[in-house]
């Protein structure tokens, strides 16, 4: 019987989730700023 060989699963490096966390935190901080600027403009 011929079995299909599977490519080895490559594990993403340990530092990758850390990089994702910094990116998420940065975008969250920026979205807070975006909301604030819209609020300021609306109140202007």
């Amino acid at each position, binding site marked *: 019987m011929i079995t299909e060989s599977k490519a080895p699963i*490559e594990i*993403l*490096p340990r*530092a*990758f989730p*850390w*990089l*994702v*966390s*910094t*990116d*998420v*935190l*940065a*975008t*969250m*901080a*920026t*979205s*807070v*700023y*975006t*909301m*604030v*600027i*819209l*609020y*300021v*403009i609306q*109140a*202007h």
Partner: protein
Amino acid sequence: MGALSHLPILLGALGLGVIVVRLPRRPLMILTNLTMGILAWIPLVVKRHVGWGYAVIIGGDFFIQTALYVDELSHNAYLKYLVTSRQLPEAEGILQSAASGGFMVGLGVVLGLLKYGTVPSFLVWSTVGCAMTSALILLLPQDTKPVSVHATPQSLFQMSRTGLAYLFREGELRWYTY
């Protein structure tokens, strides 16, 4: 305002990436996050102390969006150092999805808490977030030395053209670019 926010991406799309890969990415990410944290205060300071603030608010937003764009490019350039080329599509997908999720969560949190907090308090949170991001980036491994720091405007232009030609040659990448 929304359209102007996209101007840095339109203006910088061709050249900034070529420049970013020639700079050390980790310090660049730290610098852009700190810049965003400081620039975020411009609208409030302008509103309180300057009468003709609207143009300055838009101008400040242009710079903060540019910093954000350079930050995103640095993250992507750093990712190329962190994972293998086979892992790059998966890693890039996770990174972009997580970032989009983070943006939506941030919007939701502010919308939910708007009546409980003041504008300065939200700006403090934004700046603290940017400062924390910078601190966390310090814990990431040092990336490799950039390919070259010597580049002329002509060579940068030529590299941008080569990059664009590559994107348009590859069908799937072309649609991704659009």
